[in-house]
Protein backbone atom coordinates (compact mmCIF):
# COMPACT_ATOMS: atom_id res chain seq x y z
CA UNK A 1 0.00 0.00 0.00
CA UNK A 2 1.38 3.36 -0.89
CA UNK A 3 1.68 6.52 1.11
CA UNK A 4 -1.29 8.11 -0.46
CA UNK A 5 -3.32 4.96 -0.31
CA UNK A 6 -6.26 3.84 1.73
CA UNK A 7 -6.63 5.14 5.18
CA UNK A 8 -9.60 3.11 6.17
CA UNK A 9 -12.22 4.18 8.61
CA UNK A 10 -11.91 2.44 11.90
CA UNK A 11 -15.13 1.92 13.83
CA UNK A 12 -15.24 2.55 17.51
CA UNK A 13 -16.70 -0.18 19.70
CA UNK A 14 -18.46 0.33 22.96
CA UNK A 15 -17.80 -1.66 26.10
CA UNK A 16 -20.37 -4.25 25.02
CA UNK A 17 -18.48 -4.91 21.79
CA UNK A 18 -21.09 -3.27 19.60
CA UNK A 19 -19.95 -0.89 16.92
CA UNK A 20 -21.03 2.57 17.89
CA UNK A 21 -21.78 4.74 14.88
CA UNK A 22 -18.51 6.61 15.20
CA UNK A 23 -15.69 5.96 12.81
CA UNK A 24 -12.25 7.46 12.87
CA UNK A 25 -9.94 7.77 9.96
CA UNK A 26 -6.92 5.64 10.63
CA UNK A 27 -3.98 7.74 11.82
CA UNK A 28 -1.12 7.89 9.35
CA UNK A 29 1.17 6.27 11.85
CA UNK A 30 -0.33 2.94 10.97
CA UNK A 31 0.96 3.34 7.47
CA UNK A 32 4.50 4.08 8.52
CA UNK A 33 7.24 1.68 7.45
CA UNK A 34 7.74 -1.22 9.79
CA UNK A 35 11.43 -1.66 10.49
CA UNK A 36 11.96 -4.58 12.81
CA UNK A 37 15.72 -3.99 12.73
CA UNK A 38 15.39 -0.48 14.13
CA UNK A 39 12.87 -1.66 16.68
CA UNK A 40 15.22 -4.38 17.82
CA UNK A 41 18.20 -2.08 18.10
CA UNK A 42 16.34 0.63 19.94
CA UNK A 43 14.69 -1.87 22.22
CA UNK A 44 18.10 -3.32 23.00
CA UNK A 45 19.50 0.06 23.92
CA UNK A 46 16.42 1.18 25.76
CA UNK A 47 16.24 -1.87 27.96
CA UNK A 48 19.72 -1.05 29.28
CA UNK A 49 18.47 2.23 30.68
CA UNK A 50 16.62 0.68 33.54
CA UNK A 51 19.65 -1.09 34.99
CA UNK A 52 21.06 -0.66 38.45
CA UNK A 53 24.84 -0.74 38.78
CA UNK A 54 26.53 -3.76 40.29
CA UNK A 55 30.16 -4.08 41.26
CA UNK A 56 32.53 -6.00 43.44
CA UNK A 57 33.81 -4.28 46.57
CA UNK A 58 36.61 -1.88 45.83
CA UNK A 59 38.78 -3.41 48.52
CA UNK A 60 38.01 -7.03 47.76
CA UNK A 61 41.14 -9.15 47.65
CA UNK A 62 43.47 -6.32 48.65
CA UNK A 63 42.95 -6.32 52.36
CA UNK A 64 46.29 -8.04 52.97
CA UNK A 65 49.84 -6.78 53.17
CA UNK A 66 51.18 -9.63 51.14
CA UNK A 67 54.54 -9.46 49.45
CA UNK A 68 56.31 -11.79 47.10
CA UNK A 69 59.08 -13.90 48.63
CA UNK A 70 61.11 -13.47 45.49
CA UNK A 71 63.28 -16.15 43.97
CA UNK A 72 65.42 -18.73 45.71
CA UNK A 73 62.78 -20.12 48.05
CA UNK A 74 61.49 -22.91 45.84
CA UNK A 75 58.03 -21.42 45.63
CA UNK A 76 56.07 -19.56 43.00
CA UNK A 77 56.65 -15.85 42.95
CA UNK A 78 53.12 -14.57 43.71
CA UNK A 79 52.76 -12.31 46.73
CA UNK A 80 52.32 -14.25 49.89
CA UNK A 81 50.67 -13.26 53.13
CA UNK A 82 53.04 -12.10 55.85
CA UNK A 83 53.38 -13.35 59.35
CA UNK A 84 52.66 -16.65 60.96
CA UNK A 85 50.53 -18.55 63.34
CA UNK A 86 47.59 -19.04 61.05
CA UNK A 87 46.63 -20.98 57.98
CA UNK A 88 46.57 -17.78 55.99
CA UNK A 89 50.24 -17.03 56.43
CA UNK A 90 52.23 -17.85 53.38
CA UNK A 91 49.19 -18.29 51.18
CA UNK A 92 49.05 -16.54 47.87
CA UNK A 93 47.26 -13.24 47.71
CA UNK A 94 46.25 -10.49 45.32
CA UNK A 95 46.15 -12.48 42.10
CA UNK A 96 42.99 -13.51 40.31
CA UNK A 97 44.35 -17.08 40.39
CA UNK A 98 44.76 -17.05 44.17
CA UNK A 99 42.22 -18.22 46.61
CA UNK A 100 40.95 -15.15 48.41
CA UNK A 101 42.53 -12.90 45.84
CA UNK A 102 40.87 -10.20 43.84
CA UNK A 103 39.06 -11.18 40.64
CA UNK A 104 40.36 -10.32 37.21
CA UNK A 105 39.19 -6.85 36.22
CA UNK A 106 36.97 -6.16 39.19
CA UNK A 107 33.62 -4.82 38.08
CA UNK A 108 33.24 -1.08 38.55
CA UNK A 109 30.22 1.03 39.17
CA UNK A 110 31.28 3.52 36.55
CA UNK A 111 30.58 1.04 33.78
CA UNK A 112 28.48 2.65 31.08
CA UNK A 113 25.10 1.30 32.11
CA UNK A 114 22.80 3.51 30.07
CA UNK A 115 22.66 4.16 26.41
CA UNK A 116 21.83 7.27 24.53
CA UNK A 117 19.58 6.80 21.60
CA UNK A 118 18.89 9.39 19.01
CA UNK A 119 15.48 10.90 19.26
CA UNK A 120 14.57 10.21 15.69
CA UNK A 121 15.66 6.64 16.07
CA UNK A 122 13.54 6.24 19.14
CA UNK A 123 10.61 7.78 17.37
CA UNK A 124 11.13 5.66 14.30
CA UNK A 125 11.10 2.53 16.40
CA UNK A 126 8.00 3.73 18.20
CA UNK A 127 6.22 4.44 14.98
CA UNK A 128 7.13 1.06 13.54
CA UNK A 129 5.89 -0.68 16.62
CA UNK A 130 2.57 1.12 16.51
CA UNK A 131 2.20 0.45 12.80
CA UNK A 132 2.88 -3.23 13.37
CA UNK A 133 0.24 -3.38 16.08
CA UNK A 134 -2.26 -2.41 13.39
CA UNK A 135 -1.60 -5.51 11.29
CA UNK A 136 -3.54 -8.57 12.49
CA UNK A 137 -1.05 -10.90 10.85
CA UNK A 138 1.82 -9.51 12.87
CA UNK A 139 -0.18 -9.50 16.08
CA UNK A 140 -1.10 -13.14 15.53
CA UNK A 141 2.46 -14.03 14.66
CA UNK A 142 3.55 -12.44 17.92
CA UNK A 143 1.30 -14.95 19.63
CA UNK A 144 -1.74 -13.00 20.80
CA UNK A 145 -5.10 -14.75 20.74
CA UNK A 146 -7.05 -12.26 18.66
CA UNK A 147 -9.08 -14.59 16.46
CA UNK A 148 -12.36 -13.34 17.86
CA UNK A 149 -11.58 -9.64 18.19
CA UNK A 150 -13.84 -7.45 16.06
CA UNK A 151 -11.26 -5.26 14.39
CA UNK A 152 -7.59 -4.48 14.37
CA UNK A 153 -6.62 -1.74 15.35
CA UNK A 154 -9.12 -2.12 18.16
CA UNK A 155 -10.61 1.21 19.27
CA UNK A 156 -12.98 1.41 22.20
CA UNK A 157 -15.14 4.23 23.44
CA UNK A 158 -13.84 6.51 26.18
CA UNK A 159 -16.12 4.86 28.73
CA UNK A 160 -13.32 2.38 29.37
CA UNK A 161 -11.27 5.18 30.89
CA UNK A 162 -13.94 5.61 33.53
CA UNK A 163 -13.96 1.99 34.70
CA UNK A 164 -13.42 1.71 38.45
CA UNK A 165 -13.76 -1.96 39.34
CA UNK A 166 -11.64 -4.84 38.17
CA UNK A 167 -14.85 -6.80 37.76
CA UNK A 168 -16.03 -4.34 35.19
CA UNK A 169 -12.66 -4.42 33.49
CA UNK A 170 -12.82 -8.22 33.24
CA UNK A 171 -16.35 -7.97 31.93
CA UNK A 172 -15.21 -5.53 29.30
CA UNK A 173 -12.37 -7.78 28.20
CA UNK A 174 -14.69 -10.75 28.02
CA UNK A 175 -17.28 -8.96 25.95
CA UNK A 176 -14.73 -7.69 23.49
CA UNK A 177 -13.18 -11.19 23.19
CA UNK A 178 -9.84 -9.92 24.43
CA UNK A 179 -10.13 -12.31 27.35
CA UNK A 180 -8.68 -15.16 25.29
CA UNK A 181 -5.40 -13.35 25.37
CA UNK A 182 -5.62 -13.02 29.15
CA UNK A 183 -6.46 -16.73 29.39
CA UNK A 184 -3.28 -17.43 27.50
CA UNK A 185 -1.42 -15.41 30.12
CA UNK A 186 -2.97 -17.40 32.95
CA UNK A 187 -1.99 -20.66 31.33
CA UNK A 188 1.57 -19.54 30.75
CA UNK A 189 2.29 -18.70 34.38
CA UNK A 190 5.34 -20.57 35.66
CA UNK A 191 8.07 -20.06 38.21
CA UNK A 192 11.27 -18.46 37.05
CA UNK A 193 14.34 -20.69 37.15
CA UNK A 194 17.32 -19.26 38.97
CA UNK A 195 18.05 -16.64 41.57
CA UNK A 196 15.56 -14.20 40.17
CA UNK A 197 12.98 -16.14 42.15
CA UNK A 198 14.33 -14.66 45.33
CA UNK A 199 14.78 -11.21 43.87
CA UNK A 200 11.15 -10.24 43.40
CA UNK A 201 10.96 -11.79 39.94
CA UNK A 202 9.34 -15.02 40.96
CA UNK A 203 6.71 -15.62 38.30
CA UNK A 204 7.04 -15.62 34.55
CA UNK A 205 4.08 -15.02 32.26
CA UNK A 206 3.30 -14.12 28.71
CA UNK A 207 2.15 -10.65 27.78
CA UNK A 208 -1.52 -9.87 27.35
CA UNK A 209 -3.31 -6.91 25.78
CA UNK A 210 -2.00 -3.37 26.16
CA UNK A 211 -4.55 -0.67 26.81
CA UNK A 212 -3.65 2.80 25.58
CA UNK A 213 -5.70 5.62 27.00
CA UNK A 214 -5.79 9.36 26.90
CA UNK A 215 -6.98 10.20 30.39
CA UNK A 216 -6.93 7.97 33.44
CA UNK A 217 -10.23 8.18 35.24
CA UNK A 218 -9.85 4.91 37.10
CA UNK A 219 -8.75 2.74 34.20
CA UNK A 220 -5.26 1.93 35.50
CA UNK A 221 -6.60 0.73 38.81
CA UNK A 222 -9.36 -1.29 37.21
CA UNK A 223 -6.96 -3.17 34.94
CA UNK A 224 -4.04 -3.26 37.37
CA UNK A 225 -4.71 -6.64 38.92
CA UNK A 226 -5.46 -8.57 35.73
CA UNK A 227 -2.38 -10.61 34.83
CA UNK A 228 -0.78 -9.74 31.52
CA UNK A 229 -2.79 -6.56 30.97
CA UNK A 230 -0.81 -3.33 30.90
CA UNK A 231 -1.91 0.26 30.53
CA UNK A 232 -0.16 3.15 28.83
CA UNK A 233 -0.85 6.80 28.26
CA UNK A 234 -0.71 8.05 24.66
CA UNK A 235 1.58 10.88 25.64
CA UNK A 236 4.24 8.55 26.92
CA UNK A 237 4.19 5.49 24.74
CA UNK A 238 6.84 2.99 25.77
CA UNK A 239 8.65 0.90 23.18
CA UNK A 240 9.47 -1.70 25.81
CA UNK A 241 5.74 -2.25 26.17
CA UNK A 242 4.76 -1.86 22.52
CA UNK A 243 7.43 -4.25 21.26
CA UNK A 244 8.22 -6.55 24.16
CA UNK A 245 11.31 -8.61 23.57
CA UNK A 246 12.26 -6.42 20.64
CA UNK A 247 9.58 -8.06 18.48
CA UNK A 248 6.80 -6.01 16.93
CA UNK A 249 3.11 -6.73 17.06
CA UNK A 250 1.62 -6.34 20.51
CA UNK A 251 -2.15 -6.51 20.84
CA UNK A 252 -3.23 -2.94 21.65
CA UNK A 253 -6.62 -1.69 22.73
CA UNK A 254 -6.98 2.01 22.06
CA UNK A 255 -9.49 4.33 23.63
CA UNK A 256 -11.19 6.68 21.20
CA UNK A 257 -9.56 9.85 22.40
CA UNK A 258 -6.16 8.23 22.50
CA UNK A 259 -6.58 7.04 18.95
CA UNK A 260 -7.54 10.48 17.79
CA UNK A 261 -4.48 12.00 19.36
CA UNK A 262 -2.04 9.89 17.37
CA UNK A 263 -2.14 12.17 14.37
CA UNK A 264 -1.25 15.13 16.53
CA UNK A 265 1.50 13.39 18.39
CA UNK A 266 3.26 11.81 15.42
CA UNK A 267 1.98 13.81 12.53
CA UNK A 268 0.80 12.67 9.17
CA UNK A 269 3.05 12.91 6.16
CA UNK A 270 1.09 15.92 5.05
CA UNK A 271 1.59 17.77 8.32
CA UNK A 272 4.24 17.80 10.99
CA UNK A 273 3.70 16.58 14.49
CA UNK A 274 2.14 19.17 16.75
CA UNK A 275 3.72 17.89 19.89
CA UNK A 276 7.14 16.80 18.73
CA UNK A 277 8.79 19.84 17.22
CA UNK A 278 9.92 19.33 13.69
CA UNK A 279 9.05 15.72 13.60
CA UNK A 280 7.27 13.93 10.82
CA UNK A 281 6.71 10.28 10.14
CA UNK A 282 9.63 8.38 8.62
CA UNK A 283 9.61 8.07 4.87
CA UNK A 284 9.74 4.51 3.59
CA UNK A 285 12.34 3.24 1.16
CA UNK A 286 9.69 1.56 -0.94
CA UNK A 287 6.37 3.26 -1.30
CA UNK A 288 4.64 0.35 -2.98
CA UNK A 289 5.93 -2.61 -1.08
CA UNK A 290 4.13 -5.21 -3.13
CA UNK A 291 7.03 -6.27 -5.30
CA UNK A 292 5.10 -8.85 -7.26
CA UNK A 293 2.48 -6.34 -8.23
CA UNK A 294 5.18 -3.92 -9.25
CA UNK A 295 6.87 -6.42 -11.48
CA UNK A 296 3.64 -7.33 -13.16
CA UNK A 297 2.67 -3.72 -13.71
CA UNK A 298 2.47 -2.26 -17.19
CA UNK A 299 5.24 0.25 -16.75
CA UNK A 300 7.81 -2.31 -15.84
CA UNK A 301 6.64 -5.12 -18.12
CA UNK A 302 6.95 -2.81 -21.09
CA UNK A 303 10.60 -2.29 -20.41
CA UNK A 304 11.70 -5.75 -19.33
CA UNK A 305 13.17 -8.12 -21.84
CA UNK A 306 10.99 -11.06 -22.72
CA UNK A 307 11.89 -14.38 -21.09
CA UNK A 308 13.79 -16.78 -23.36
Amino acid sequence: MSLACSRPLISVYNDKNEATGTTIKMPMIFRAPIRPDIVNFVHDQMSKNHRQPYAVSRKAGHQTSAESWGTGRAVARIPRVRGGGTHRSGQGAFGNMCRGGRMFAPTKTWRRWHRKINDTQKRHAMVSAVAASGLPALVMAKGHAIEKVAEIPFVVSDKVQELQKTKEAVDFLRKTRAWNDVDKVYNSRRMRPGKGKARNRRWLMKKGPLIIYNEDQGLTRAFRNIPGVETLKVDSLNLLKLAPGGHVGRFCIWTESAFKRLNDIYGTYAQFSKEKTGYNLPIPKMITTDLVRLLRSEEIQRVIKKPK
Partner: protein
Amino acid sequence: MSDDVVWSIINENLCSYKVKTKTQTFCRNEYNLTGLCNRATCPLANSQYATVREDKGICYLYMKTVERSAFPSKMWERVKLSKDLDKALRQINVNLIYWPKFMKAKCRQRFLKIQQYLIRMRKLRLRRQKKLTPVRLKIDRRETRREQKALIAARLDTNIEQELLKRLKEGTYGDIYNFSQVAFDKALDAEEMESEAEEGEKENESDEEETEINPEIERELEGEYEDSEEETHEFVEAEDSDIMSDEEDLEELNSRVTKLLEKSSQAESSSDGESADEESGPSKKRKLETKAKKKRKTGKKKMEIEYEIESSSLPKVKVVGR
Protein backbone atom coordinates in the same frame (compact mmCIF):
# COMPACT_ATOMS: atom_id res chain seq x y z
CA MET B 1 0.74 -3.32 4.69
CA SER B 2 1.60 -5.65 1.96
CA ASP B 3 2.07 -9.35 2.25
CA ASP B 4 5.71 -9.19 1.35
CA VAL B 5 6.46 -6.92 4.27
CA VAL B 6 4.56 -9.17 6.60
CA TRP B 7 6.33 -12.23 5.29
CA SER B 8 9.77 -10.67 5.65
CA ILE B 9 9.02 -9.74 9.23
CA ILE B 10 7.49 -13.10 10.11
CA ASN B 11 10.14 -15.16 8.45
CA GLU B 12 13.18 -13.29 9.66
CA ASN B 13 12.00 -12.34 13.10
CA LEU B 14 9.44 -13.93 15.27
CA CYS B 15 6.54 -16.10 14.24
CA SER B 16 4.98 -17.98 17.11
CA TYR B 17 3.57 -20.64 14.79
CA LYS B 18 6.89 -21.55 13.26
CA VAL B 19 8.44 -24.82 14.33
CA LYS B 20 11.93 -25.49 13.10
CA THR B 21 13.45 -28.94 12.80
CA LYS B 22 16.75 -29.97 11.27
CA THR B 23 15.24 -30.73 7.90
CA GLN B 24 12.08 -28.64 7.73
CA THR B 25 10.11 -25.74 9.13
CA PHE B 26 6.51 -26.38 10.07
CA CYS B 27 3.63 -24.01 10.64
CA ARG B 28 1.38 -24.68 13.62
CA ASN B 29 -1.34 -22.38 12.36
CA GLU B 30 -4.63 -24.26 12.16
CA TYR B 31 -5.55 -22.73 8.83
CA ASN B 32 -2.34 -23.68 7.07
CA LEU B 33 -2.92 -25.57 3.86
CA THR B 34 0.10 -27.82 3.91
CA GLY B 35 1.46 -27.50 7.43
CA LEU B 36 4.79 -26.21 6.22
CA CYS B 37 6.16 -22.73 6.70
CA ASN B 38 6.40 -21.26 3.21
CA ARG B 39 5.87 -17.96 1.51
CA ALA B 40 3.00 -19.44 -0.49
CA THR B 41 1.33 -21.39 2.30
CA CYS B 42 1.59 -18.96 5.20
CA PRO B 43 -1.96 -17.99 6.25
CA LEU B 44 -0.64 -14.82 7.85
CA ALA B 45 1.46 -13.60 4.96
CA ASN B 46 -1.19 -14.18 2.32
CA SER B 47 -4.20 -11.90 2.45
CA GLN B 48 -5.98 -14.12 -0.05
CA TYR B 49 -5.96 -17.63 1.29
CA ALA B 50 -8.08 -20.75 1.27
CA THR B 51 -7.99 -24.01 3.25
CA VAL B 52 -10.03 -27.12 3.73
CA ARG B 53 -10.54 -28.15 7.33
CA GLU B 54 -12.46 -30.99 8.86
CA ASP B 55 -14.60 -30.83 11.97
CA LYS B 56 -16.25 -33.99 13.27
CA GLY B 57 -16.15 -35.64 9.90
CA ILE B 58 -17.57 -32.70 7.97
CA CYS B 59 -15.25 -30.82 5.65
CA TYR B 60 -15.39 -27.07 5.25
CA LEU B 61 -13.76 -24.74 2.80
CA TYR B 62 -12.36 -21.66 4.48
CA MET B 63 -11.59 -18.56 2.50
CA LYS B 64 -9.91 -15.32 3.44
CA THR B 65 -9.83 -12.15 1.36
CA VAL B 66 -8.06 -8.81 1.54
CA GLU B 67 -11.22 -6.91 2.28
CA ARG B 68 -11.78 -8.67 5.57
CA SER B 69 -8.17 -8.80 6.66
CA ALA B 70 -8.64 -6.12 9.32
CA PHE B 71 -11.53 -7.91 11.03
CA PRO B 72 -10.26 -11.09 12.66
CA SER B 73 -13.64 -12.29 13.88
CA LYS B 74 -15.08 -12.21 10.37
CA MET B 75 -11.95 -13.01 8.44
CA TRP B 76 -12.69 -16.56 7.43
CA GLU B 77 -15.62 -17.42 5.21
CA ARG B 78 -16.78 -20.98 5.68
CA VAL B 79 -18.47 -23.16 3.08
CA LYS B 80 -19.73 -26.59 4.04
CA LEU B 81 -18.60 -29.19 1.55
CA SER B 82 -20.97 -31.97 0.61
CA LYS B 83 -20.28 -35.52 1.72
CA ASP B 84 -20.23 -36.61 -1.86
CA LEU B 85 -16.67 -36.50 -3.12
CA ASP B 86 -17.38 -35.27 -6.65
CA LYS B 87 -19.81 -32.64 -5.51
CA ALA B 88 -17.37 -31.38 -2.94
CA LEU B 89 -14.58 -31.08 -5.48
CA ARG B 90 -16.87 -29.18 -7.76
CA GLN B 91 -17.79 -26.91 -4.88
CA ILE B 92 -14.15 -26.16 -4.29
CA ASN B 93 -13.63 -25.36 -7.94
CA VAL B 94 -16.62 -23.09 -8.04
CA ASN B 95 -15.75 -21.18 -4.90
CA LEU B 96 -12.13 -20.70 -5.84
CA ILE B 97 -12.84 -20.07 -9.48
CA TYR B 98 -10.53 -17.14 -10.13
CA TRP B 99 -8.05 -17.96 -7.46
CA PRO B 100 -4.45 -18.82 -8.20
CA LYS B 101 -3.94 -22.37 -9.46
CA PHE B 102 -1.59 -23.24 -6.65
CA MET B 103 -4.22 -22.54 -4.02
CA LYS B 104 -6.92 -24.46 -5.85
CA ALA B 105 -4.72 -27.49 -6.37
CA LYS B 106 -3.57 -27.54 -2.77
CA CYS B 107 -7.13 -27.22 -1.51
CA ARG B 108 -8.27 -30.14 -3.59
CA GLN B 109 -5.31 -32.19 -2.50
CA ARG B 110 -5.94 -31.42 1.14
CA PHE B 111 -9.61 -32.25 0.79
CA LEU B 112 -8.80 -35.65 -0.72
CA LYS B 113 -6.26 -36.38 2.01
CA ILE B 114 -8.84 -35.53 4.64
CA GLN B 115 -11.40 -37.77 3.00
CA GLN B 116 -8.90 -40.61 2.93
CA TYR B 117 -8.09 -40.37 6.57
CA LEU B 118 -11.78 -40.12 7.44
CA ILE B 119 -12.43 -43.35 5.55
CA ARG B 120 -9.56 -44.97 7.41
CA MET B 121 -10.93 -43.74 10.73
CA ARG B 122 -14.34 -45.21 9.96
CA LYS B 123 -12.82 -48.55 9.00
CA LEU B 124 -10.75 -48.62 12.16
CA ARG B 125 -13.79 -47.92 14.27
CA LEU B 126 -15.51 -51.00 12.87
CA ARG B 127 -12.59 -53.28 13.62
CA ARG B 128 -11.53 -54.50 16.99
CA GLN B 129 -9.67 -51.67 18.47
CA LYS B 130 -6.48 -52.37 20.24
CA LYS B 131 -6.41 -50.64 23.50
CA LEU B 132 -2.97 -49.73 24.49
CA THR B 133 -2.38 -50.03 28.16
CA PRO B 134 0.92 -49.03 29.60
CA VAL B 135 3.14 -51.56 31.29
CA ARG B 136 3.11 -50.66 34.92
CA LEU B 137 6.27 -52.35 36.08
CA LYS B 138 6.21 -51.25 39.66
CA ILE B 139 2.62 -52.24 40.12
CA ASP B 140 3.10 -55.58 38.35
CA ARG B 141 6.07 -56.48 40.49
CA ARG B 142 4.22 -55.59 43.61
CA GLU B 143 1.16 -57.61 42.68
CA THR B 144 3.07 -60.77 41.74
CA ARG B 145 4.90 -60.71 45.02
CA ARG B 146 1.66 -60.25 46.88
CA GLU B 147 0.10 -63.14 45.02
CA GLN B 148 2.96 -65.38 46.05
CA LYS B 149 2.61 -64.33 49.64
CA ALA B 150 -1.11 -64.86 49.60
CA LEU B 151 -0.60 -68.35 48.19
CA ILE B 152 1.73 -69.19 51.03
CA ALA B 153 -0.52 -67.64 53.61
CA ALA B 154 -3.49 -69.66 52.41
CA ARG B 155 -1.69 -72.88 53.28
CA LEU B 156 -3.77 -74.77 50.78
CA ASP B 157 -2.09 -78.11 51.26
CA THR B 158 -2.61 -78.30 54.98
CA ASN B 159 -6.14 -77.03 54.78
CA ILE B 160 -7.04 -79.54 52.11
CA GLU B 161 -5.45 -82.31 54.14
CA GLN B 162 -7.37 -81.34 57.22
CA GLU B 163 -10.59 -81.10 55.31
CA LEU B 164 -10.09 -84.55 53.83
CA LEU B 165 -9.20 -86.07 57.16
CA LYS B 166 -12.22 -84.52 58.72
CA ARG B 167 -14.39 -85.99 56.04
CA LEU B 168 -12.72 -89.35 56.56
CA LYS B 169 -13.41 -89.26 60.25
CA GLU B 170 -16.98 -88.30 59.65
CA GLY B 171 -17.23 -91.29 57.43
CA THR B 172 -18.39 -89.61 54.24
CA TYR B 173 -16.07 -91.79 52.24
CA GLY B 174 -17.19 -95.07 53.67
CA ASP B 175 -14.86 -97.76 54.92
CA ILE B 176 -12.87 -98.84 51.95
CA TYR B 177 -10.52 -96.26 50.66
CA ASN B 178 -7.09 -96.32 49.18
CA PHE B 179 -4.60 -94.38 51.20
CA SER B 180 -1.08 -93.68 50.26
CA GLN B 181 1.35 -95.63 52.37
CA VAL B 182 3.15 -92.51 53.50
CA ALA B 183 0.02 -90.80 54.66
CA PHE B 184 -1.18 -93.90 56.46
CA ASP B 185 2.09 -94.28 58.36
CA LYS B 186 2.07 -90.66 59.19
CA ALA B 187 -1.39 -90.85 60.60
CA LEU B 188 -0.55 -93.93 62.62
CA ASP B 189 2.53 -92.37 64.08
CA ALA B 190 0.54 -89.32 64.90
CA GLU B 191 -1.97 -91.38 66.85
CA GLU B 192 0.72 -93.33 68.66
CA MET B 193 2.43 -90.16 69.59
CA GLU B 194 -0.80 -88.86 70.99
CA SER B 195 -1.43 -91.83 73.16
CA GLU B 196 2.16 -91.95 74.29
CA ALA B 197 1.99 -88.35 75.10
CA GLU B 198 -1.04 -88.96 77.28
CA GLU B 199 0.58 -91.82 79.10
CA GLY B 200 3.81 -89.95 79.28
CA GLU B 201 1.96 -87.21 81.02
CA LYS B 202 0.44 -89.59 83.48
CA GLU B 203 3.80 -91.19 84.04
CA ASN B 204 5.47 -87.90 84.61
CA GLU B 205 2.87 -87.02 87.16
CA SER B 206 3.24 -90.28 88.98
CA ASP B 207 7.01 -90.00 88.98
CA GLU B 208 6.76 -86.64 90.52
CA GLU B 209 4.41 -87.92 93.15
CA GLU B 210 6.77 -90.69 94.08
CA THR B 211 9.66 -88.32 94.57
CA GLU B 212 7.76 -85.93 96.72
CA ILE B 213 5.56 -88.14 98.85
CA ASN B 214 6.71 -90.14 101.84
CA PRO B 215 7.19 -93.80 101.43
CA GLU B 216 4.40 -94.53 103.95
CA ILE B 217 1.95 -92.39 102.07
CA GLU B 218 3.20 -93.98 98.93
CA ARG B 219 2.27 -97.34 100.31
CA GLU B 220 -1.16 -96.13 101.11
CA LEU B 221 -1.46 -94.79 97.58
CA GLU B 222 -0.12 -97.93 96.20
CA GLY B 223 -2.64 -99.63 98.36
CA GLU B 224 -5.29 -98.35 95.96
CA TYR B 225 -3.81 -100.47 93.32
CA GLU B 226 -3.07 -103.44 95.54
CA ASP B 227 -5.20 -104.94 98.29
CA SER B 228 -2.69 -107.12 100.04
CA GLU B 229 0.80 -106.38 100.95
CA GLU B 230 1.50 -110.01 101.03
CA GLU B 231 1.29 -110.51 97.40
CA THR B 232 2.76 -107.22 96.46
CA HIS B 233 4.70 -107.59 93.33
CA GLU B 234 7.39 -105.25 93.93
CA PHE B 235 10.55 -104.90 92.14
CA VAL B 236 13.81 -105.04 93.83
CA GLU B 237 17.24 -104.03 92.99
CA ALA B 238 19.43 -106.78 91.85
CA GLU B 239 22.34 -107.30 94.15
CA ASP B 240 24.84 -106.10 91.68
CA SER B 241 22.64 -103.30 90.41
CA ASP B 242 25.39 -100.71 90.30
CA ILE B 243 27.57 -102.68 87.99
CA MET B 244 24.77 -103.71 85.73
CA SER B 245 24.33 -102.10 82.34
CA ASP B 246 21.25 -100.46 80.96
CA GLU B 247 20.42 -103.24 78.69
CA GLU B 248 20.72 -105.74 81.41
CA ASP B 249 18.46 -103.65 83.53
CA LEU B 250 15.98 -103.58 80.76
CA GLU B 251 16.16 -107.26 80.27
CA GLU B 252 15.72 -107.78 83.94
CA LEU B 253 12.73 -105.58 83.97
CA ASN B 254 11.23 -107.32 81.05
CA SER B 255 11.78 -110.71 82.60
CA ARG B 256 10.22 -109.56 85.82
CA VAL B 257 7.30 -108.17 83.95
CA THR B 258 6.66 -111.40 82.19
CA LYS B 259 6.95 -113.31 85.44
CA LEU B 260 4.50 -110.97 86.99
CA LEU B 261 2.11 -111.57 84.24
CA GLU B 262 2.40 -115.31 84.60
CA LYS B 263 1.85 -115.08 88.25
CA SER B 264 -1.12 -112.86 87.89
CA SER B 265 -2.65 -115.11 85.30
CA GLN B 266 -2.13 -118.11 87.59
CA ALA B 267 -3.61 -116.36 90.54
CA GLU B 268 -6.53 -115.18 88.48
CA SER B 269 -9.13 -117.63 89.41
CA SER B 270 -8.09 -117.93 93.08
CA SER B 271 -8.92 -114.70 94.77
CA ASP B 272 -10.64 -111.41 94.18
CA GLY B 273 -7.77 -109.70 95.70
CA GLU B 274 -5.78 -111.02 92.88
CA SER B 275 -8.11 -109.51 90.39
CA ALA B 276 -7.05 -106.24 91.69
CA ASP B 277 -3.55 -107.40 91.21
CA GLU B 278 -4.44 -108.45 87.75
CA GLU B 279 -5.69 -105.05 87.07
CA SER B 280 -2.75 -103.63 88.76
CA GLY B 281 -0.57 -106.10 86.96
CA PRO B 282 -1.45 -105.17 83.43
CA SER B 283 -1.60 -101.57 84.48
CA LYS B 284 1.71 -101.97 86.11
CA LYS B 285 2.92 -103.88 83.16
CA ARG B 286 1.76 -101.08 80.96
CA LYS B 287 3.47 -98.66 83.18
CA LEU B 288 6.60 -100.68 83.03
CA GLU B 289 6.39 -101.05 79.31
CA THR B 290 5.98 -97.39 78.82
CA LYS B 291 8.62 -96.79 81.36
CA ALA B 292 10.85 -99.18 79.51
CA LYS B 293 10.07 -97.48 76.30
CA LYS B 294 10.79 -94.21 77.85
CA LYS B 295 13.99 -95.62 79.18
CA ARG B 296 14.93 -96.64 75.69
CA LYS B 297 14.29 -93.18 74.51
CA THR B 298 15.53 -91.23 77.46
CA GLY B 299 18.94 -91.40 78.98
CA LYS B 300 20.55 -93.33 81.73
CA LYS B 301 19.69 -90.84 84.36
CA LYS B 302 16.02 -91.45 84.30
CA MET B 303 16.46 -95.09 84.70
CA GLU B 304 18.49 -94.65 87.77
CA ILE B 305 15.94 -92.44 89.36
CA GLU B 306 13.21 -94.87 88.78
CA TYR B 307 15.20 -97.63 90.24
CA GLU B 308 15.82 -95.82 93.42
CA ILE B 309 12.25 -94.81 93.81
CA GLU B 310 10.97 -98.24 93.37
CA SER B 311 13.33 -99.71 95.84
CA SER B 312 12.54 -97.11 98.46
CA SER B 313 8.80 -97.28 98.12
CA LEU B 314 8.34 -100.96 97.94
CA PRO B 315 9.43 -103.56 100.51
CA LYS B 316 12.12 -105.72 99.21
CA VAL B 317 10.82 -109.04 98.20
CA LYS B 318 12.73 -111.46 96.26
CA VAL B 319 10.84 -112.83 93.43
CA VAL B 320 11.58 -116.39 92.89
CA GLY B 321 11.10 -117.27 89.33
CA ARG B 322 9.97 -120.62 88.15
